[in-house]
């Protein structure tokens, strides 16, 4: 009679309680929302582009082969893979693309990684200067280095053009393989992305607790063994991240191979698009396939990852390798010379170019006659009379350039703020649920657009938003949506990398004190990993400022600065493109300095730094 009655909750109550418990954690809320939104924004463009491969396009090969003006067909697949043009249109560009992507990864990781090691783990001289100057190639639009390469090494004897600087001044004709094709393309892209490797790897090196290495040293472990068994495994996530980011980026690069005469899937996409529209979309699908494959590989590596915590609540210190009294200057001098050619020379050459009477006309250098210099490219304020300006006003008075500049700033700021915030939240949420499949899914789906070549993402968004209901071509809305989706990985990667380094005990201490989540984020987590998180905002901003491959198919040429710059470069009006380059570089440097002054963070301090 008096037996106590056990209250048994119903299954639905248990379920509801579980749901409540699940959503009581902010990181779970973030994961669910982001998962849904990112699935739509990532999958919808892919579906649109897949549909396009089956669609019949009037006036193109599929309409010709099927004899129909509309409908669906598989003829694009059949023709691309089996026609006599398969080698030209598919296999050769595919091989070139893979070689370019792999080569770029190797160059950027070796160059950027070694540089990061020297800057952060040794007593190298002039580190501050080198660190700042090293990121310049990444600031500049990638194809401008290709144009500089051409202006330096082309020659009448080898490339059948007018003489570049080297041939004109020293009579040196570089061989063809050096001037055009795979080699210069991978070097230029490798140099462009090396700062990426430097930022990512440098961030880890900077934060690494040297106790592990010191322990190994005490145990009399050889230096090479410490490097391979202790140091490198610690930076493995950063190396992997670099590979992931650089592989996808270089694969989808259009302008560099375009200028340096290498046929890749990106350049082929553009050339096929007019007559082989559906087949071009298949090329975009193939590029995306690589993106998915890399993501899966990354997934494997992530699940097998043990612990990469480098920042804990305990002590941390960095010991620096002594390069010797002379060594630290000799190596620094070598790096100063190298960075002069990769960073300073292009800028000087841009500045010089804006004072030449004709594009590429170096008469002043041979004659020393100042009559062979002009300020017309800057100060001409009318475009009515023909005075060698190709119908353009000077840079200072050119409305097209300044309107494009404003557009670029607007797109970059929006993309940076939105992508940076979303990415940071994703990085945080994923780090809190490392073993959760959903977290891994969200992480992957957020990262996928970055692994997809830019040009393919651009194509997909163009197709998705060009219909009778929504037509966003040439609007900032489209650029911001595309840019945001594409750049979330910058922030999510840097955020995840830094959050993984952050020991859980730090936040747990605050939870025990019942500190609200917002306060934990703003007072503890974000301040500790401030520079990583700010890098997550700065990287999208900087990348967006000079992004071309992603946006080139989404807007007209005077809409943003990069398309305007590319237009002038293609037209051979190097004074204008060089002037725009200078404007971009100054803008980025000013922004970087401002952020540095206000927050103490800086891009070159590196992710996790």
């Amino acid at each position, binding site marked *: 009679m008096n037996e106590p009655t056990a209250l048994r909750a119903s299954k639905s109550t248990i379920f509801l309680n579980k749901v409540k418990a699940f959503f009581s954690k902010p990181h779970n809320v973030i994961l669910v929302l982001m998962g849904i939104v990112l699935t739509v924004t990532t999958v919808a463009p892919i579906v649109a582009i897949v549909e396009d491969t089956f669609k019949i396009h009037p006036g193109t090969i599929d309409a*010709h082969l099927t004899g129909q003006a509309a409908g669906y067909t598989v003829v694009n697949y059949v023709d691309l893979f089996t026609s006599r043009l398969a080698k030209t249109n598919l296999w050769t560009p595919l091989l070139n693309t893979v070689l370019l992507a792999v080569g770029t990864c190797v160059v950027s990781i070796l160059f950027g990684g070694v540089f990061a090691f020297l800057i952060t783990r040794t007593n190298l001289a002039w580190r501050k200067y080198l660190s700042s100057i090293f990121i310049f190639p990444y600031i500049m639009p990638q194809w401008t280095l290709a144009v500089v390469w051409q202006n330096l090494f082309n020659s009448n004897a080898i490339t059948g053009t007018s003489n570049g600087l080297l041939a004109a001044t020293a009579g040196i004709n570089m061989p063809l393989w050096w001037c055009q094709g795979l080699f210069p393309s991978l070097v230029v892209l490798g140099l462009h992305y090396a700062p990426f490797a430097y930022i990512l790897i440098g961030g880890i090196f900077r934060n690494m607790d040297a106790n592990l290495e010191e322990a190994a040293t005490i145990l009399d472990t050889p230096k090479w063994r410490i490097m391979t068994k202790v140091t490198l495994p610690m930076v493995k996530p950063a190396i992997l991240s670099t590979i992931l980011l650089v592989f996808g980026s270089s694969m989808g690069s259009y302008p560099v191979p375009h200028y340096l005469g290498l046929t890749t899937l990106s350049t082929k996409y553009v050339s096929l698009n007019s007559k082989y529209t559906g087949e071009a979309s298949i090329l975009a699908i193939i590029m995306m396939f690589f993106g998915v494959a890399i993501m899966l590989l990354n997934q494997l590596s992530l699940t097998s990852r043990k612990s990469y915590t480098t920042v804990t609540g305990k002590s941390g210190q960095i010991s620096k390798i002594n390069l010797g009294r002379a060594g630290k200057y000799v190596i620094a001098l070598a790096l100063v010379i190298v960075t002069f050619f990769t960073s300073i020379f292009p800028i000087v050459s841009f500045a010089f170019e804006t004072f030449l*009477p004709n594009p590429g006309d170096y008469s002043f250098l041979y004659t020393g006659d100042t009559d062979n210099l002009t300020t017309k490219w800057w100060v001409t304020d009318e475009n009515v009379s023909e005075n060698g300006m190709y119908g353009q006003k000077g840079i200072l008075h050119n409305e097209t350039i300044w309107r494009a500049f404003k557009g670029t700033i607007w797109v970059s700021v929006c993309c940076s703020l939105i992508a940076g915030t979303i990415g940071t939240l994703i990085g945080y949420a994923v780090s809190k649920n490392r073993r959760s499949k959903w977290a891994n899914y969200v992480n992957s789906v957020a990262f996928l657009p970055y692994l997809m070549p830019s040009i393919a993402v651009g194509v997909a968004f163009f197709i998705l938003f*060009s219909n009778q209901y929504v*037509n966003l071509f040439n609007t900032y*809305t489209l650029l911001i949506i595309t840019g945001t989706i594409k750049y979330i990985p910058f922030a999510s990667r840097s955020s995840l990398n830094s959050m993984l380094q952050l020991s859980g005990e730090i936040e747990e201490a605050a939870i025990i004190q019942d500190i609200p*989540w917002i306060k934990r984020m703003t007072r503890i987590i974000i301040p500790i990993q401030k520079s990583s998180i700010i890098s997550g905002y700065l990287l999208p901003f900087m990348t967006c400022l000079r992004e071309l491959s992603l946006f080139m198919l989404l807007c*007209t*040429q*005077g809409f943003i600065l990069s398309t305007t710059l590319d237009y002038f470069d293609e037209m051979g009006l190097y004074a204008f493109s060089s002037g725009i380059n200078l404007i971009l570089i100054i803008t980025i440097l000013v922004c970087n300095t401002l952020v540095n002054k206000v927050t103490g963070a800086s891009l070159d301090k590196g992710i996790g730094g």
Partner: protein
Amino acid sequence: MKRLSALLLTLVMLLSLAACGGNGGSAPAAQDTPPAQTEGDAAPAPKDEAPAPADDANLTETQKIIKEAESMSLEDLAKKAIEESNGKMFYGVGNSSRGKSALPLFIEYLQSIDSSYSMEFEWQQPKNNKIFDQLTADSLKDTGTFAMTLIQDGNQIESKMVQTGILDTFIPKEWAEANGTSADAYTGYLALQTLNKVFMYNNTGSKTYDNCWDFVAEGEHGLYMDIDSEIVGKNFLYMLTADTYAGWLKDAFNALSADEQAYFQPTIKEMESEAADLGLGADGAYALAWIKLWVESYNAQTDDGPICNTLVDKSATDQFGLLVYSKLRSVEESSSVSVNNINVAAYDDGYTGIGGYGYCHYLFVTDNSPLPWTACAFIAYMTETVDGFSAWGKDMGGYSSNPTVAEATEAQYGHSKGGMAEDGVTVEFEAKNDRGYDWWTTDGKLVLEDPEYCADVAFTVGSWVEMLTKYSAG
């Protein structure tokens, strides 16, 4: 609290993603514009089918307006335009950036009729062949964004724009009269102008080019815009297979010395069966041989600008290119750069064979044009008046399709004496004395684009061209 904070923060981010993008004064979304009004039983032509025959009952609203407009003078059209577009926004899209310069002049003209008239405008110039995608996407709306277009590449216009009913041709009355025809009798597209790409070579060395076959001789690598970048370049090759131009190539071949002929003969022989397979005329093998040798030898460049920059430099000894003639207008003389460093091959005494390639900028009204009367008036203004054409006419190398305008433009700008010194007698820059459209299409042997022919052979000759291995310096 923390749940709410996280949720709110996330939602704010997502909402800002959707809301943050400004339109930037560009193309409005579909819903911003009212749907096109259709008249009773007159349904618009299906977009993916060939346009209906010119039966009035089957005409779309825009086609009806065009039909009416074709019987009106420029002034009457201007009044209609004022009525339609006063205070509105006009969007145009074109391959030439100079539409942007022509529009303010057009507005001034309308203001000379009605001083209270005003119109905002935006002129877009897409790249990488994107104009066709842009117009196709815009055609899906009931009322489009773009009122009209100025577009090149007759081949794609025919197959993607005209056969699909996306663009409509408007023939202005006074333009037709100037050409001795009428809107009803005229069957082609309306060209604003013909541009010419001509063979030029650097003359600082000893090499000369006195026959068009010299450009495909052994070891030659002419500078030329990649045919996959600029499709009109491919159209040039298609046109060479037309009977007239294949005949010109044969004549030029016959003018070569026996030694020179011996080099080309095996290729011509090899092409005979190909020409037969492709259904070409009797001289088709000459055309295919020239095309093969050209594609396998030309040094692809990104644009005509860099080609011009290269050729006028004294270091480009013995280089040559096929490029837009008008590029010479902007060369500034310096110690190493001069217009006198190049020769226009066709101007040389004794030169034999094709001198270059002529292609058109065509004008069309979009079939779902939001401002069809204004589009017609603007088109009439550009093709019927010197001021309207001045954005192009002020420079050499662009020839109005209206003979009256062409004559008046020459009288105003004097391009035939563009290379003379100030005294008007001394020849300063021979290459800049533009000999004009009539000369180029007769003595200058300019190969002229025919959109229909290009569209016809795009998948016969076109596919054959794509099979050729392009020269690659890299």
